[in-house]
């Protein structure tokens, strides 16, 4: 999809004799919600798992998961990590998703983050990553909504 630049959108909004409705009509696809929807669609297409399997492995609520991928709800940093651990696509896509939501990337110098990075890069399941977190006295990922 061809995204309009933010600066262009801003200029359009400033046009004096233009109704908001016409702005809305012309730029439906430019809202963040749609960006997020497209983003999730593309990332999910690279994951061979069924959505319900991703949900169960990530231990997130069904409705919450669908709201996230439709761009309707903003996931916490931990929830993004849980979904990525579940999808098992490696570290890169997880860092990209965190960036998209303006969350800090997983940082190797932070102890808890380093364990999550280790889990993702070693294709560990959520419960295995949580076990490693617990072993190192770090808050676990599961049950954090």
């Amino acid at each position, binding site marked *: 999809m061809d995204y309009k630049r933010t600066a262009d959108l801003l200029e359009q909004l400033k046009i004096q004799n233009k109704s908001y409705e016409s702005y809305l009509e012309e730029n439906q696809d430019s809202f963040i919600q749609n960006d997020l929807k497209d983003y999730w669609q593309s990332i999910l297409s690279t994951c061979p798992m069924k959505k319900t399997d991703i949900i*169960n*492995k990530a231990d997130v609520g069904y409705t919450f998961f669908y709201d996230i991928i439709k761009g309707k709800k903003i996931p916490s940093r931990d929830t993004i990590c849980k979904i990525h651990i579940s999808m098992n696509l490696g570290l890169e896509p997880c860092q990209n998703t965190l960036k998209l939501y303006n969350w800090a990337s997983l940082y190797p110098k932070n102890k808890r983050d380093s364990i999550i990075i280790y889990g993702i890069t070693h294709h560990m399941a959520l419960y295995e990553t949580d076990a490693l977190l617990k072993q190192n006295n770090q808050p676990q990922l599961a049950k954090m909504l």
Partner: protein
Amino acid sequence: MSKYSEFIEKTLESEYTHLQCFKNDDSIKIDLYKHTKIRKKLVLIRSKNRNDHIFRILRGINHPNLPTVFDVCACDDYLMVLESYVEGESLSKLLQKGCVTKKQAVKYTIDVCEALKTLHEKQIIHRDIKPENIIISPDGKAILIDLQAARLVTDTDHKDTINLGTVGYAAPEQYGVHQSTPPTDIYAVGVLLNELIINCHPTVRIPSGKLGKIISKCTETQIYNRYQTVDKLIADLKRYSFFH
């Protein structure tokens, strides 16, 4: 189907015997299973209601007044919950038989409040407290079941509020646009206690004395006039049972 539900179904088939179906309609199927070797009994709920986040929060918690959720699984068409079987008779049946004393009524209400305390701590509002959803165990404990209508305080979508909950027990705000909070459950507890003691709705009649005062404070129309937390309610109920 999902991989995990296939696993659960297979395990139930190979290691458990189906004992009973409690309920089976368009929206929910509830079955009782028993392990073929050990005596353990399990309840499997298959529900169209997608509030699996509630059960995920409760999974693994052991509380004397709540069933233990063992597992939660999202499937394409429904939600699966595996929980402990609560042995006993429903409070509605005991009420019909007319064999609930005032002392027991207060004790059961305290038990229900203890269950609510744990739920509310986790931001979960039960929203369907009534005698049918309370099981009295052989040793006289009240256990609060049926989290089908439960939601988080932060769930701000109100569209389904009218269909859930039970008429009479639902607090006024459950019909409108207000969000469910602990006082929503506290209202239903007040209705419950009144039913248990004098077998009618508080809007019809309330007993005189200290218990009546407690019930009134639970069932105030204005949310802010009710008990705001179950802690306060438990304290008042315990004080009552100490002196009576």
